[in-house]
């Protein structure tokens, strides 16, 4: 809508009419008419003044002024004429109407002047109307585009919701799968372990040394398999955020003592000194079985990675708010690179692999899961070649904002 255009009206009987449409928004039209003969100088002055006024009001009207100077000067060389000019005075100026005649102007000329002025107005109104149309169609277009975008977004939202639902469904399927596999693995393991136990008790007859030794191998490995099944289930529950803690007042020092006692034979076999430093009584509001599993995981790990003649120290302590457990070994240590991934599931250090130390890489992930569920922290200090210390800190009480999950039965 910058400019409707320029319109020249060349009019009858030697009278020259000029109509120029500028840009802008005003609808007011003025025209000046003189029926009296004017001198050439006065005609110049009036036309020029109007053009200058228009130019002052609106920069684009300067071109009109120029147009006058260049094109119409000779039109005023006649001895007698009448100036007719109309400037659209209201700001912003949209144009000037000018006219010159060699004779006194009559009513017809005045009529043309009127017509020219009206033509301005009509052109202007048409222009505004078209502008409005364009604006409206632009709005309609915008609306359509907005609606399309909105529909697109809505479709994306729907697809996301469907995707989400599908993911949840897959998650449920995974849970069900893990539960089913877990159940289906435990059922044959029940028979395997049950009948091995019968045989080892001698209920199937006396065993030769070799038979006993081999039965022990089966026993140990079926126990490993069972442990793996339990670990996988635990990891799946961690994934689903469904670790259920059976919280009671737990004497952490007792749990540590029991765990250390249970792994003492392993330490002895490996010729590793296992010591417990747990003076006093540290009582914690937590899940006894899980805390036992946590300490067992760390101590078993420490024993696995400590060579014969080494040491594993378990220390338990606490203050008013926090209980802590430290498991320190004199084993091979953990490199800085490995430390970053230590608590990731299935992660095995390169050293563990090259030393062919058995493990699934789930122990520390599970330990972290148990610590997290209790609202605590677990950290590690290690020097390669000289040993590793794990430190766990657990709040004695849960913050009240953490809901206590429904308790489970069994381990």
């Amino acid at each position, binding site marked *: 809508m910058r400019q409707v255009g320029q319109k020249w009206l060349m009019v009858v009987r030697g009278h020259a009419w000029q109509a120029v449409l500028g840009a802008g928004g005003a609808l007011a039209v003025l025209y000046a008419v003189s029926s009296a003969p004017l001198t050439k100088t006065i005609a110049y002055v009036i036309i020029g003044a109007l053009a200058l006024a228009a130019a002052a009001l609106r920069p684009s009207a300067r071109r009109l002024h120029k147009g006058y100077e260049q094109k119409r000067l000779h039109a005023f060389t006649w001895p007698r004429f009448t100036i007719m000019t109309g400037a659209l005075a209201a700001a912003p100026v949209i144009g000037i109407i000018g006219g010159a005649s060699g004779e006194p102007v009559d009513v017809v000329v005045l009529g043309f002047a009127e017509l020219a002025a009206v033509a301005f107005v009509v052109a202007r109104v048409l222009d505004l109307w078209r502008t409005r149309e364009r604006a409206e169609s632009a709005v309609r277009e915008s609306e359509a585009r907005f609606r399309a975008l909105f529909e697109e977004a809505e479709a994306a939202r729907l697809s996301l919701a469907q995707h989400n639902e599908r993911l949840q469904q897959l998650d449920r399927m995974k849970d069900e799968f893990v539960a089913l596999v877990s*159940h289906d693995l435990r059922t044959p393991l*029940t028979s395997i372990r*049950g009948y091995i*136990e*019968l045989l080892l008790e001698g*209920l199937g007859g006396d065993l030769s040394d070799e038979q006993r030794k081999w039965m022990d191998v089966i026993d140990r490995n079926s126990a490993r398999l069972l442990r793996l099944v339990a670990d996988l289930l635990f990891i799946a529950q961690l994934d689903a955020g469904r670790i259920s803690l059976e919280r009671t007042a737990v004497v952490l020092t007792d749990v540590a003592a029991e765990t250390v006692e249970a792994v003492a034979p392993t330490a002895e076999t490996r010729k590793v000194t296992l010591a417990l430093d747990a003076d006093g009584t540290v009582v914690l509001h937590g899940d006894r079985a899980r805390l036992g599993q946590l300490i067992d995981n760390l101590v078993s790990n420490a024993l696995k990675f400590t060579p014969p003649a080494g040491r594993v120290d378990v220390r338990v302590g606490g203050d008013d708010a926090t209980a802590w457990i430290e498991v320190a070994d004199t084993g091979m240590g953990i490199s800085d690179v490995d430390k970053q991934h230590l608590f990731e599931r299935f992660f095995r250090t390169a050293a563990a692999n090259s030393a062919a130390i058995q493990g699934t890489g789930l122990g520390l992930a599970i330990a972290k899961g148990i610590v997290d569920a209790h609202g605590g922290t677990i950290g590690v200090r290690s020097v390669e070649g000289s040993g590793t210390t794990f430190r766990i800190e657990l709040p004695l009480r849960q913050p009240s904002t953490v809901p206590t999950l429904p308790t489970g039965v069994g381990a």
Partner: protein
Amino acid sequence: VSSDAPVVVVADDDPDILTLVELRLRLLGCVVITAVDGESALAAITSNKPDLAVLDIQMPGLDGLGVVDRVRANPDTHGVPIILLSASVHEADVRRGLARGADAYVRKPFEARELATAVEKILVREPLGTCS
């Protein structure tokens, strides 16, 4: 087996586990009646009024929990102690079983000692005498 030996109904749809539990209970001195599903376990409990029932939870048809319900609903058998056996990882199954009136729960795989402890605990408080 003496005439006052406790009578135990054992139900499991896995025949190997059924035999294992039967063997263990016999070693404890019990008279064992076996059942391979819930329906026959219920029938055995109803007709024998045993001193104890050891029931697997997951069985086709009427499952262990269903048997607990029926046994408890029947005035003739509602006092029969029940131990549930389960390889389930759904803690809820076990809680439901105990809530419905089972007396104890033994998780599979179990060690002989765990089963014996659960069984003895129940039979000791029975007037009929103990297994071992």
